Protein backbone atom coordinates (compact mmCIF):
# COMPACT_ATOMS: atom_id res chain seq x y z
CA UNK A 1 0.00 0.00 0.00
CA UNK A 2 2.83 2.35 0.93
CA UNK A 3 4.35 1.95 -2.49
CA UNK A 4 1.10 2.89 -4.18
CA UNK A 5 0.87 6.01 -2.03
CA UNK A 6 4.49 6.81 -2.91
CA UNK A 7 3.77 6.44 -6.61
CA UNK A 8 0.83 8.80 -6.38
CA UNK A 9 2.74 11.37 -4.30
CA UNK A 10 5.68 11.44 -6.70
CA UNK A 11 3.55 11.02 -9.80
CA UNK A 12 1.21 13.84 -8.92
CA UNK A 13 4.00 16.28 -8.11
CA UNK A 14 5.66 15.51 -11.42
CA UNK A 15 2.23 15.81 -13.02
CA UNK A 16 2.34 19.55 -12.27
CA UNK A 17 5.58 19.65 -14.25
CA UNK A 18 3.96 17.55 -16.98
CA UNK A 19 1.16 20.13 -17.26
CA UNK A 20 3.81 22.75 -17.95
CA UNK A 21 5.44 20.57 -20.56
CA UNK A 22 2.00 19.95 -22.06
CA UNK A 23 1.73 23.67 -22.78
CA UNK A 24 5.16 24.03 -24.38
CA UNK A 25 5.50 20.72 -26.16
CA UNK A 26 1.94 19.86 -27.07
CA UNK A 27 0.28 23.24 -27.47
CA UNK A 28 3.14 25.50 -28.54
CA UNK A 29 5.17 22.72 -30.21
CA UNK A 30 8.21 24.19 -28.45
CA UNK A 31 10.83 21.79 -27.03
CA UNK A 32 11.57 23.85 -23.94
CA UNK A 33 14.74 22.75 -22.15
CA UNK A 34 14.37 25.57 -19.60
CA UNK A 35 12.46 22.97 -17.58
CA UNK A 36 15.64 21.22 -16.40
CA UNK A 37 16.58 24.40 -14.55
CA UNK A 38 13.24 26.00 -13.75
CA UNK A 39 12.27 22.89 -11.77
CA UNK A 40 15.23 23.28 -9.34
CA UNK A 41 14.68 27.05 -9.49
CA UNK A 42 11.28 26.61 -7.89
CA UNK A 43 12.83 24.24 -5.36
CA UNK A 44 15.64 26.69 -4.53
CA UNK A 45 13.26 29.61 -4.03
CA UNK A 46 10.90 27.58 -1.89
CA UNK A 47 13.76 26.07 0.16
CA UNK A 48 15.56 29.31 0.92
CA UNK A 49 12.34 31.10 1.83
CA UNK A 50 11.26 28.23 4.08
CA UNK A 51 14.66 28.16 5.78
CA UNK A 52 14.28 31.87 6.41
CA UNK A 53 11.01 31.30 8.15
CA UNK A 54 8.38 32.01 5.53
CA UNK A 55 5.15 30.06 5.56
CA UNK A 56 5.76 27.11 3.18
CA UNK A 57 2.46 27.69 1.42
CA UNK A 58 3.41 31.27 0.61
CA UNK A 59 6.67 30.12 -0.96
CA UNK A 60 4.74 28.32 -3.70
CA UNK A 61 3.39 31.37 -5.56
CA UNK A 62 6.77 33.07 -5.23
CA UNK A 63 8.50 30.00 -6.68
CA UNK A 64 5.98 29.96 -9.53
CA UNK A 65 6.68 33.62 -10.16
CA UNK A 66 10.42 32.90 -10.37
CA UNK A 67 9.65 30.13 -12.86
CA UNK A 68 7.51 32.54 -14.85
CA UNK A 69 10.48 34.90 -15.13
CA UNK A 70 12.68 32.08 -16.42
CA UNK A 71 10.03 31.29 -19.06
CA UNK A 72 9.93 34.97 -19.94
CA UNK A 73 13.69 34.97 -20.51
CA UNK A 74 13.53 31.93 -22.80
CA UNK A 75 10.61 33.51 -24.65
CA UNK A 76 12.36 36.84 -25.11
CA UNK A 77 15.55 35.12 -26.32
CA UNK A 78 13.52 33.11 -28.81
CA UNK A 79 11.10 35.75 -30.06
CA UNK A 80 13.05 38.98 -29.74
CA UNK A 81 16.58 37.73 -30.43
CA UNK A 82 15.38 35.20 -33.03
CA UNK A 83 17.29 32.31 -31.44
CA UNK A 84 16.00 28.83 -32.28
CA UNK A 85 13.60 27.29 -29.77
CA UNK A 86 15.89 24.51 -28.56
CA UNK A 87 18.84 26.86 -28.17
CA UNK A 88 16.89 29.52 -26.28
CA UNK A 89 15.92 26.89 -23.73
CA UNK A 90 19.51 25.68 -23.45
CA UNK A 91 20.78 29.21 -22.88
CA UNK A 92 18.33 29.89 -20.06
CA UNK A 93 18.88 26.43 -18.58
CA UNK A 94 22.65 26.93 -18.48
CA UNK A 95 22.45 30.39 -16.94
CA UNK A 96 19.87 29.35 -14.39
CA UNK A 97 22.23 26.71 -12.99
CA UNK A 98 24.42 29.43 -11.52
CA UNK A 99 21.44 31.50 -10.47
CA UNK A 100 19.96 28.50 -8.65
CA UNK A 101 23.24 28.03 -6.77
CA UNK A 102 23.18 31.73 -5.87
CA UNK A 103 19.59 31.65 -4.70
CA UNK A 104 20.05 28.63 -2.44
CA UNK A 105 23.54 29.74 -1.45
CA UNK A 106 24.78 26.16 -1.75
CA UNK A 107 24.31 23.04 -3.86
CA UNK A 108 22.25 21.23 -1.26
CA UNK A 109 19.95 22.99 1.15
CA UNK A 110 18.06 20.77 3.59
CA UNK A 111 15.32 21.94 5.97
CA UNK A 112 14.48 18.83 7.91
CA UNK A 113 13.47 20.50 11.13
CA UNK A 114 11.10 23.07 9.70
CA UNK A 115 7.40 23.14 9.06
CA UNK A 116 6.79 22.18 5.46
CA UNK A 117 3.84 22.20 3.14
CA UNK A 118 3.30 18.56 4.13
CA UNK A 119 4.04 18.80 7.81
CA UNK A 120 2.16 21.59 9.54
CA UNK A 121 -0.90 22.34 11.61
CA UNK A 122 -3.19 21.55 8.71
CA UNK A 123 -1.87 18.06 7.94
CA UNK A 124 -1.51 17.06 11.59
CA UNK A 125 -5.17 17.94 12.11
CA UNK A 126 -6.17 15.10 9.77
CA UNK A 127 -7.87 12.17 11.54
CA UNK A 128 -5.55 9.24 12.24
CA UNK A 129 -6.90 7.00 9.50
CA UNK A 130 -6.07 9.71 6.94
CA UNK A 131 -2.54 10.34 8.23
CA UNK A 132 -0.78 7.92 5.85
CA UNK A 133 -2.47 9.76 2.99
CA UNK A 134 -1.79 13.27 4.22
CA UNK A 135 1.01 14.00 1.74
CA UNK A 136 -1.00 12.54 -1.08
CA UNK A 137 -3.97 14.69 -0.12
CA UNK A 138 -1.91 17.87 -0.05
CA UNK A 139 -0.39 17.09 -3.46
CA UNK A 140 -3.82 16.23 -4.79
CA UNK A 141 -5.21 19.57 -3.65
CA UNK A 142 -2.38 21.51 -5.30
CA UNK A 143 -2.58 19.44 -8.48
CA UNK A 144 -6.34 19.67 -8.81
CA UNK A 145 -6.21 23.41 -8.24
CA UNK A 146 -3.59 23.80 -10.95
CA UNK A 147 -5.45 21.55 -13.37
CA UNK A 148 -8.73 23.31 -12.75
CA UNK A 149 -7.21 26.76 -13.27
CA UNK A 150 -5.42 25.59 -16.40
CA UNK A 151 -8.56 24.03 -17.83
CA UNK A 152 -10.48 27.23 -17.10
CA UNK A 153 -7.72 29.35 -18.60
CA UNK A 154 -7.82 27.32 -21.80
CA UNK A 155 -11.46 28.31 -22.16
CA UNK A 156 -10.79 32.03 -21.91
CA UNK A 157 -10.04 34.33 -24.84
CA UNK A 158 -6.36 34.38 -23.87
CA UNK A 159 -6.42 30.58 -23.67
CA UNK A 160 -7.99 30.36 -27.12
CA UNK A 161 -5.14 32.43 -28.56
CA UNK A 162 -2.56 30.22 -26.83
CA UNK A 163 -4.12 27.11 -28.33
CA UNK A 164 -4.42 28.84 -31.70
CA UNK A 165 -0.76 29.89 -31.84
CA UNK A 166 0.46 26.31 -31.53
CA UNK A 167 -2.19 25.02 -33.90
CA UNK A 168 -1.91 27.64 -36.63
CA UNK A 169 0.16 30.76 -36.20
CA UNK A 170 -1.37 32.32 -39.32
CA UNK A 171 -4.79 32.53 -37.72
CA UNK A 172 -3.34 34.46 -34.79
CA UNK A 173 -1.59 36.90 -37.12
CA UNK A 174 -4.73 37.48 -39.17
CA UNK A 175 -6.56 38.12 -35.89
CA UNK A 176 -4.17 41.09 -35.58
CA UNK A 177 -2.36 39.54 -32.62
CA UNK A 178 1.41 39.23 -32.19
CA UNK A 179 2.02 35.50 -32.20
CA UNK A 180 5.48 36.02 -30.64
CA UNK A 181 3.96 37.59 -27.54
CA UNK A 182 1.57 34.71 -27.17
CA UNK A 183 4.40 32.19 -27.39
CA UNK A 184 6.17 34.08 -24.61
CA UNK A 185 2.98 34.00 -22.59
CA UNK A 186 2.82 30.22 -23.02
CA UNK A 187 6.42 29.78 -21.91
CA UNK A 188 5.79 31.98 -18.87
CA UNK A 189 2.80 29.91 -17.76
CA UNK A 190 4.55 26.60 -18.47
CA UNK A 191 7.67 27.43 -16.51
CA UNK A 192 5.63 28.85 -13.65
CA UNK A 193 3.99 25.43 -13.38
CA UNK A 194 7.35 23.63 -13.62
CA UNK A 195 8.83 25.79 -10.86
CA UNK A 196 5.73 25.20 -8.76
CA UNK A 197 6.31 21.46 -9.16
CA UNK A 198 9.92 21.97 -8.09
CA UNK A 199 8.79 23.90 -5.02
CA UNK A 200 6.32 21.19 -4.00
CA UNK A 201 9.00 18.55 -4.57
CA UNK A 202 11.47 20.43 -2.36
CA UNK A 203 8.78 20.71 0.32
CA UNK A 204 8.10 16.99 0.18
CA UNK A 205 11.77 15.95 0.16
CA UNK A 206 12.67 18.66 2.68
CA UNK A 207 15.74 19.45 0.64
CA UNK A 208 16.84 21.44 -2.40
CA UNK A 209 19.58 19.90 -4.49
CA UNK A 210 21.08 21.53 -7.55
CA UNK A 211 20.94 18.29 -9.50
CA UNK A 212 17.27 17.59 -8.89
CA UNK A 213 16.30 18.99 -12.28
CA UNK A 214 18.42 16.61 -14.30
CA UNK A 215 16.16 14.76 -16.69
CA UNK A 216 13.07 16.78 -15.73
CA UNK A 217 12.27 17.59 -19.35
CA UNK A 218 12.66 13.95 -20.37
CA UNK A 219 10.27 12.96 -17.63
CA UNK A 220 7.78 15.66 -18.61
CA UNK A 221 7.85 14.69 -22.28
CA UNK A 222 7.49 11.00 -21.43
CA UNK A 223 4.52 11.69 -19.16
CA UNK A 224 2.78 13.85 -21.76
CA UNK A 225 3.40 11.42 -24.61
CA UNK A 226 2.38 8.35 -22.58
CA UNK A 227 -0.80 10.12 -21.47
CA UNK A 228 -1.59 11.37 -24.94
CA UNK A 229 -1.16 7.91 -26.40
CA UNK A 230 -3.38 6.30 -23.83
CA UNK A 231 -6.19 8.75 -24.48
CA UNK A 232 -5.93 9.43 -28.14
CA UNK A 233 -8.23 11.59 -30.20
CA UNK A 234 -9.04 13.96 -27.44
CA UNK A 235 -9.47 17.67 -27.16
CA UNK A 236 -7.08 19.68 -25.00
CA UNK A 237 -9.30 19.74 -21.95
CA UNK A 238 -8.69 16.05 -21.50
CA UNK A 239 -5.03 16.67 -22.31
CA UNK A 240 -4.44 17.90 -18.77
CA UNK A 241 -5.95 14.67 -17.46
CA UNK A 242 -3.84 12.64 -19.87
CA UNK A 243 -0.62 14.32 -18.74
CA UNK A 244 -1.45 13.64 -15.11
CA UNK A 245 -2.25 9.98 -15.76
CA UNK A 246 0.88 9.67 -17.91
CA UNK A 247 3.00 11.03 -15.10
CA UNK A 248 1.60 8.59 -12.56
CA UNK A 249 2.00 5.64 -14.94
CA UNK A 250 5.61 6.55 -15.60
CA UNK A 251 6.34 6.62 -11.87
CA UNK A 252 4.48 3.33 -11.42
CA UNK A 253 6.63 1.70 -14.09
CA UNK A 254 9.82 2.83 -12.34
CA UNK A 255 8.49 1.58 -8.99
CA UNK A 256 7.50 -1.73 -10.56
CA UNK A 257 10.91 -2.15 -12.15
CA UNK A 258 12.54 -1.45 -8.77
CA UNK A 259 10.23 -3.84 -6.95
CA UNK A 260 10.88 -6.62 -9.41
CA UNK A 261 14.45 -6.43 -8.23
CA UNK A 262 15.90 -5.29 -11.50
CA UNK A 263 19.56 -4.45 -11.51
CA UNK A 264 19.68 -0.66 -11.11
CA UNK A 265 22.08 -0.30 -14.01
CA UNK A 266 19.38 -1.62 -16.31
CA UNK A 267 16.64 0.58 -14.94
CA UNK A 268 16.92 3.31 -17.54
CA UNK A 269 16.89 0.73 -20.31
CA UNK A 270 13.78 -0.91 -18.86
CA UNK A 271 12.13 2.49 -18.64
CA UNK A 272 13.05 3.17 -22.24
CA UNK A 273 11.60 -0.17 -23.36
CA UNK A 274 8.37 0.41 -21.44
CA UNK A 275 8.17 3.87 -22.92
CA UNK A 276 8.64 2.45 -26.41
CA UNK A 277 6.04 -0.26 -25.80
CA UNK A 278 3.47 2.29 -24.76
CA UNK A 279 4.24 4.39 -27.82
CA UNK A 280 4.01 1.44 -30.19
CA UNK A 281 0.95 -0.14 -28.62
CA UNK A 282 -0.72 3.23 -28.38
CA UNK A 283 -0.05 3.88 -32.05
CA UNK A 284 2.74 5.96 -33.44
CA UNK A 285 2.50 9.53 -32.25
CA UNK A 286 1.32 11.51 -35.21
CA UNK A 287 2.75 14.95 -35.26
CA UNK A 288 0.23 17.50 -36.35
CA UNK A 289 0.99 18.97 -39.74
CA UNK A 290 2.00 22.59 -39.56
CA UNK A 291 1.41 25.19 -42.18
CA UNK A 292 3.39 28.33 -42.50
CA UNK A 293 2.59 31.50 -44.40
Amino acid at each position, binding site marked *: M*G*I*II*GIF*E*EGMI*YAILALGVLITYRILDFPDLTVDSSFPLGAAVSAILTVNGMNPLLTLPIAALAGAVSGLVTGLIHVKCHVRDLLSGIITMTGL*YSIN*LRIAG*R*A*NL*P*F*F*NMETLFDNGFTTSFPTFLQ*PYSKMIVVLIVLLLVKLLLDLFMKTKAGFLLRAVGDNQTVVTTLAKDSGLIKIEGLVIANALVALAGAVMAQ*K*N*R*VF*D*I*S*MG*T*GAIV*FGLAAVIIGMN*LFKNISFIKGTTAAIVGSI*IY*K*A*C*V*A*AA*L*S*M*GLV*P*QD*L*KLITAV*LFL*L*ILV*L*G*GVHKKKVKFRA
Partner: protein
Amino acid sequence: MKKQLLSLLVVLVLVLSLTSIAGAEAQKTYTIGIAQFAEHPSLDNCRIGFIEGLAEAGYVEGENVTYVVQNAQTDMGLAQQIAAQMAQECDLVCAIATPMAQAAFNACMDSGKPVIYTAVSDPVGSMLANAEGKSDKAITGSCDLLPVEAQLKMIRAILPEAKKIGILYTTSETNSESQLKLYQETAAAYDFEIVASGISTGADIPLALDTLLPQVDCMTNLTDNTVVSYLAVVLDKTNAASKPVFGSEIEQVKNGCLASEGVEYLSLGKETGALAAQVLEGTFAGDIAFVSSEGGDMCYNSEVAAQLNITIPEAEAARGVDVTKE
Protein backbone atom coordinates in the same frame (compact mmCIF):
# COMPACT_ATOMS: atom_id res chain seq x y z
CA MET B 1 -7.10 -4.65 -29.08
CA LYS B 2 -3.98 -2.56 -28.74
CA LYS B 3 -5.57 -0.59 -25.97
CA GLN B 4 -6.45 -3.76 -24.11
CA LEU B 5 -2.91 -5.05 -24.47
CA LEU B 6 -1.67 -1.77 -23.16
CA SER B 7 -3.88 -1.68 -20.12
CA LEU B 8 -3.02 -5.33 -19.49
CA LEU B 9 0.64 -4.41 -19.52
CA VAL B 10 0.14 -1.60 -17.04
CA VAL B 11 -1.96 -3.76 -14.71
CA LEU B 12 0.60 -6.58 -14.97
CA VAL B 13 3.40 -4.26 -14.00
CA LEU B 14 1.45 -2.94 -11.03
CA VAL B 15 0.43 -6.39 -9.82
CA LEU B 16 3.99 -7.65 -10.12
CA SER B 17 5.20 -4.75 -8.07
CA LEU B 18 2.64 -5.46 -5.37
CA THR B 19 3.29 -9.18 -5.11
CA SER B 20 7.02 -8.73 -4.81
CA ILE B 21 6.52 -6.31 -1.94
CA ALA B 22 4.14 -8.70 -0.23
CA GLY B 23 6.81 -11.38 -0.65
CA ALA B 24 9.40 -9.25 1.05
CA GLU B 25 7.16 -8.48 4.00
CA ALA B 26 6.47 -12.14 4.63
CA GLN B 27 10.15 -12.74 5.58
CA LYS B 28 10.74 -13.31 9.26
CA THR B 29 14.38 -12.28 9.18
CA TYR B 30 15.44 -8.64 9.08
CA THR B 31 15.12 -6.93 5.76
CA ILE B 32 17.79 -4.31 5.41
CA GLY B 33 17.75 -1.86 2.56
CA ILE B 34 21.03 -0.54 1.23
CA ALA B 35 20.46 2.54 -0.89
CA GLN B 36 23.54 3.75 -2.68
CA PHE B 37 23.54 7.10 -4.48
CA ALA B 38 26.14 6.34 -7.13
CA GLU B 39 28.31 3.59 -8.55
CA HIS B 40 31.76 4.43 -7.29
CA PRO B 41 34.63 2.32 -5.77
CA SER B 42 34.55 4.23 -2.46
CA LEU B 43 30.81 3.89 -2.10
CA ASP B 44 30.96 0.24 -3.14
CA ASN B 45 33.50 -0.31 -0.37
CA CYS B 46 31.10 1.31 2.08
CA ARG B 47 28.45 -1.19 1.12
CA ILE B 48 30.77 -4.18 1.33
CA GLY B 49 32.10 -2.99 4.68
CA PHE B 50 28.59 -2.40 6.03
CA ILE B 51 27.56 -5.96 5.22
CA GLU B 52 30.78 -7.30 6.79
CA GLY B 53 30.31 -5.18 9.88
CA LEU B 54 26.80 -6.53 10.41
CA ALA B 55 28.00 -10.07 9.80
CA GLU B 56 30.66 -9.66 12.48
CA ALA B 57 27.90 -8.66 14.88
CA GLY B 58 25.94 -11.78 14.05
CA TYR B 59 23.64 -10.54 11.34
CA VAL B 60 24.50 -12.73 8.40
CA GLU B 61 23.02 -12.53 4.96
CA GLY B 62 20.88 -15.54 4.15
CA GLU B 63 20.57 -16.53 7.81
CA ASN B 64 18.79 -13.74 9.60
CA VAL B 65 19.21 -10.82 7.20
CA THR B 66 17.95 -10.21 3.71
CA TYR B 67 19.49 -7.32 1.83
CA VAL B 68 17.67 -5.20 -0.70
CA VAL B 69 20.33 -3.27 -2.60
CA GLN B 70 19.45 -0.36 -4.88
CA ASN B 71 21.52 2.22 -6.68
CA ALA B 72 20.11 5.57 -7.71
CA GLN B 73 22.77 6.14 -10.35
CA THR B 74 23.01 9.79 -9.21
CA ASP B 75 19.37 10.37 -10.19
CA MET B 76 17.72 12.50 -7.48
CA GLY B 77 14.21 11.48 -8.44
CA LEU B 78 15.15 7.83 -8.37
CA ALA B 79 16.85 8.33 -4.99
CA GLN B 80 13.56 9.63 -3.59
CA GLN B 81 11.63 6.72 -5.01
CA ILE B 82 14.11 4.13 -3.75
CA ALA B 83 14.00 5.75 -0.31
CA ALA B 84 10.21 5.78 -0.25
CA GLN B 85 10.09 2.15 -1.22
CA MET B 86 12.66 1.06 1.36
CA ALA B 87 10.92 3.08 4.07
CA GLN B 88 8.00 0.75 3.49
CA GLU B 89 9.55 -2.64 2.91
CA CYS B 90 12.68 -2.63 5.08
CA ASP B 91 13.31 -2.81 8.81
CA LEU B 92 16.37 -0.61 8.53
CA VAL B 93 17.74 1.53 5.75
CA CYS B 94 21.43 2.06 5.11
CA ALA B 95 21.90 5.15 2.94
CA ILE B 96 25.23 5.73 1.23
CA ALA B 97 26.23 9.32 0.31
CA THR B 98 24.60 12.59 1.32
CA PRO B 99 21.70 12.94 -1.17
CA MET B 100 20.65 9.35 -0.51
CA ALA B 101 20.90 9.90 3.24
CA GLN B 102 18.67 12.97 3.03
CA ALA B 103 16.14 11.15 0.89
CA ALA B 104 16.08 8.15 3.26
CA PHE B 105 15.84 10.38 6.33
CA ASN B 106 12.89 12.20 4.82
CA ALA B 107 11.14 9.04 3.66
CA CYS B 108 11.59 7.26 7.01
CA MET B 109 10.51 10.26 9.07
CA ASP B 110 6.90 9.13 8.92
CA SER B 111 7.34 5.37 9.06
CA GLY B 112 9.84 5.69 11.92
CA LYS B 113 12.20 3.12 10.37
CA PRO B 114 15.80 3.71 11.43
CA VAL B 115 18.25 5.17 8.94
CA ILE B 116 22.00 4.48 9.10
CA TYR B 117 23.97 6.70 6.77
CA THR B 118 27.57 6.56 5.65
CA ALA B 119 29.87 8.47 3.30
CA VAL B 120 28.34 11.76 4.45
CA SER B 121 30.97 14.46 4.83
CA ASP B 122 28.97 16.91 6.87
CA PRO B 123 26.07 15.31 8.77
CA VAL B 124 25.42 18.51 10.73
CA GLY B 125 25.40 20.77 7.69
CA SER B 126 23.23 18.27 5.83
CA MET B 127 20.84 18.43 8.80
CA LEU B 128 21.10 14.71 9.48
CA ALA B 129 22.41 15.31 12.98
CA ASN B 130 22.32 18.10 15.53
CA ALA B 131 25.41 19.82 16.89
CA GLU B 132 26.02 16.95 19.33
CA GLY B 133 25.97 14.45 16.48
CA LYS B 134 22.66 12.97 17.61
CA SER B 135 19.07 13.41 16.48
CA ASP B 136 15.55 13.26 17.87
CA LYS B 137 14.66 11.07 14.89
CA ALA B 138 15.78 7.49 14.31
CA ILE B 139 18.95 8.27 12.44
CA THR B 140 22.68 7.86 12.93
CA GLY B 141 25.66 6.92 10.81
CA SER B 142 29.22 7.65 9.90
CA CYS B 143 30.97 10.61 8.44
CA ASP B 144 33.70 10.37 5.83
CA LEU B 145 35.12 13.79 6.39
CA LEU B 146 38.64 13.78 5.03
CA PRO B 147 41.45 13.71 7.58
CA VAL B 148 42.50 17.09 6.24
CA GLU B 149 45.07 17.83 8.92
CA ALA B 150 46.79 14.50 8.39
CA GLN B 151 46.79 15.01 4.65
CA LEU B 152 48.29 18.51 4.91
CA LYS B 153 50.91 17.22 7.34
CA MET B 154 51.83 14.46 4.91
CA ILE B 155 52.07 16.87 1.97
CA ARG B 156 54.34 19.09 4.03
CA ALA B 157 56.56 16.11 4.85
CA ILE B 158 56.84 14.99 1.22
CA LEU B 159 57.11 18.48 -0.31
CA PRO B 160 58.93 20.68 2.24
CA GLU B 161 59.24 23.57 -0.26
CA ALA B 162 55.66 23.67 -1.53
CA LYS B 163 53.61 26.79 -0.92
CA LYS B 164 50.39 26.53 -2.87
CA ILE B 165 48.02 23.59 -3.18
CA GLY B 166 45.48 23.48 -5.98
CA ILE B 167 42.02 22.02 -5.44
CA LEU B 168 39.42 21.27 -8.10
CA TYR B 169 35.84 20.97 -6.90
CA THR B 170 32.41 20.65 -8.42
CA THR B 171 30.10 23.51 -7.50
CA SER B 172 27.10 21.20 -7.34
CA GLU B 173 28.63 18.79 -4.82
CA THR B 174 27.86 19.82 -1.31
CA ASN B 175 30.46 17.43 0.18
CA SER B 176 33.17 19.17 -1.79
CA GLU B 177 32.13 22.56 -0.50
CA SER B 178 32.49 21.54 3.12
CA GLN B 179 35.79 19.75 2.48
CA LEU B 180 37.18 22.75 0.66
CA LYS B 181 36.18 25.00 3.52
CA LEU B 182 38.05 22.76 5.92
CA TYR B 183 41.17 22.84 3.74
CA GLN B 184 41.01 26.63 3.54
CA GLU B 185 40.69 26.91 7.31
CA THR B 186 43.48 24.46 8.09
CA ALA B 187 46.03 25.20 5.36
CA ALA B 188 47.66 28.18 7.06
CA ALA B 189 48.67 26.06 10.05
CA TYR B 190 50.94 24.08 7.73
CA ASP B 191 52.09 27.14 5.84
CA PHE B 192 50.09 26.34 2.73
CA GLU B 193 47.82 28.44 0.61
CA ILE B 194 44.83 26.84 -1.13
CA VAL B 195 44.00 27.86 -4.69
CA ALA B 196 40.59 26.47 -5.58
CA SER B 197 38.88 26.24 -8.94
CA GLY B 198 35.20 25.39 -9.31
CA ILE B 199 33.80 23.40 -12.21
CA SER B 200 30.23 22.50 -13.21
CA THR B 201 30.92 19.38 -15.25
CA GLY B 202 33.79 17.04 -16.00
CA ALA B 203 34.18 18.70 -19.36
CA ASP B 204 35.39 21.86 -17.61
CA ILE B 205 38.37 20.08 -16.03
CA PRO B 206 41.07 20.50 -18.74
CA LEU B 207 40.54 24.26 -19.05
CA ALA B 208 40.30 24.74 -15.30
CA LEU B 209 43.60 22.88 -14.85
CA ASP B 210 45.34 24.90 -17.54
CA THR B 211 44.64 28.00 -15.48
CA LEU B 212 45.18 26.42 -12.09
CA LEU B 213 48.38 24.40 -12.57
CA PRO B 214 50.83 27.26 -13.27
CA GLN B 215 49.78 28.85 -9.98
CA VAL B 216 50.33 25.85 -7.70
CA ASP B 217 53.06 23.47 -6.54
CA CYS B 218 50.82 20.42 -6.23
CA MET B 219 47.21 19.34 -6.27
CA THR B 220 45.09 17.52 -3.73
CA ASN B 221 41.78 15.82 -4.39
CA LEU B 222 38.59 16.04 -2.40
CA THR B 223 36.17 13.13 -2.44
CA ASP B 224 34.54 15.05 -5.28
CA ASN B 225 32.68 12.54 -7.44
CA THR B 226 33.16 14.40 -10.71
CA VAL B 227 36.85 15.11 -10.25
CA VAL B 228 37.56 11.57 -9.08
CA SER B 229 35.69 10.15 -12.08
CA TYR B 230 37.85 12.26 -14.39
CA LEU B 231 41.07 11.42 -12.57
CA ALA B 232 42.74 10.23 -15.78
CA VAL B 233 42.18 13.65 -17.34
CA VAL B 234 43.55 15.36 -14.25
CA LEU B 235 46.67 13.18 -14.16
CA ASP B 236 47.29 13.72 -17.86
CA LYS B 237 47.58 17.45 -17.28
CA THR B 238 49.50 17.29 -14.01
CA ASN B 239 52.02 14.78 -15.33
CA ALA B 240 52.66 17.02 -18.31
CA ALA B 241 53.34 19.84 -15.85
CA SER B 242 55.33 17.53 -13.53
CA LYS B 243 53.22 18.46 -10.55
CA PRO B 244 52.15 15.79 -8.07
CA VAL B 245 48.53 15.05 -7.18
CA PHE B 246 47.58 13.82 -3.74
CA GLY B 247 44.55 11.60 -3.61
CA SER B 248 41.68 11.40 -1.18
CA GLU B 249 41.52 7.62 -1.21
CA ILE B 250 43.69 4.59 -1.85
CA GLU B 251 42.04 3.78 -5.19
CA GLN B 252 43.23 7.10 -6.56
CA VAL B 253 46.79 6.37 -5.50
CA LYS B 254 46.61 3.05 -7.29
CA ASN B 255 45.46 4.96 -10.35
CA GLY B 256 48.38 7.36 -10.37
CA CYS B 257 48.16 9.86 -7.53
CA LEU B 258 51.36 10.28 -5.51
CA ALA B 259 50.07 9.57 -2.03
CA SER B 260 47.03 9.95 0.19
CA GLU B 261 46.06 10.05 3.82
CA GLY B 262 42.57 9.14 2.94
CA VAL B 263 39.40 7.67 4.21
CA GLU B 264 39.42 3.93 4.29
CA TYR B 265 35.88 3.24 3.22
CA LEU B 266 35.90 -0.47 3.89
CA SER B 267 36.55 0.06 7.61
CA LEU B 268 34.20 3.03 7.65
CA GLY B 269 31.55 0.68 6.26
CA LYS B 270 32.33 -1.89 8.95
CA GLU B 271 31.92 0.71 11.69
CA THR B 272 28.63 1.68 10.11
CA GLY B 273 27.56 -1.96 10.12
CA ALA B 274 28.33 -2.12 13.83
CA LEU B 275 26.08 0.91 14.37
CA ALA B 276 23.31 -0.84 12.49
CA ALA B 277 23.71 -3.90 14.70
CA GLN B 278 23.31 -1.72 17.78
CA VAL B 279 20.11 -0.29 16.37
CA LEU B 280 18.75 -3.74 15.48
CA GLU B 281 19.36 -4.76 19.07
CA GLY B 282 17.06 -2.02 20.27
CA THR B 283 19.05 1.17 20.77
CA PHE B 284 17.24 4.25 19.47
CA ALA B 285 19.31 5.38 16.48
CA GLY B 286 18.99 9.07 17.30
CA ASP B 287 20.73 8.50 20.64
CA ILE B 288 23.90 7.27 18.96
CA ALA B 289 26.19 10.07 17.82
CA PHE B 290 27.56 9.69 14.33
CA VAL B 291 31.11 8.37 14.07
CA SER B 292 33.86 9.84 11.97
CA SER B 293 36.40 8.01 9.89
CA GLU B 294 39.74 7.63 11.57
CA GLY B 295 42.34 8.79 9.10
CA GLY B 296 45.89 7.62 9.03
CA ASP B 297 45.72 5.07 6.27
CA MET B 298 48.70 6.50 4.48
CA CYS B 299 49.56 5.04 1.13
CA TYR B 300 51.85 6.10 -1.70
CA ASN B 301 52.82 5.12 -5.21
CA SER B 302 56.57 4.66 -5.58
CA GLU B 303 56.41 4.47 -9.40
CA VAL B 304 54.72 7.84 -9.59
CA ALA B 305 57.24 9.24 -7.12
CA ALA B 306 60.11 8.03 -9.31
CA GLN B 307 58.55 9.60 -12.40
CA LEU B 308 58.20 12.93 -10.67
CA ASN B 309 61.65 12.70 -9.06
CA ILE B 310 60.18 12.96 -5.62
CA THR B 311 61.57 11.00 -2.69
CA ILE B 312 59.08 9.85 -0.14
CA PRO B 313 60.73 10.62 3.24
CA GLU B 314 61.60 7.51 5.15
CA ALA B 315 59.34 8.30 8.07
CA GLU B 316 56.37 8.54 5.74
CA ALA B 317 57.33 5.48 3.73
CA ALA B 318 57.70 3.48 6.90
CA ARG B 319 54.19 4.14 8.18
CA GLY B 320 52.52 3.94 4.77
CA VAL B 321 51.79 1.30 2.21
CA ASP B 322 53.31 1.30 -1.25
CA VAL B 323 50.41 0.45 -3.53
CA THR B 324 52.72 -0.82 -6.28
CA LYS B 325 53.93 -3.60 -4.03
CA GLU B 326 50.61 -5.15 -3.22
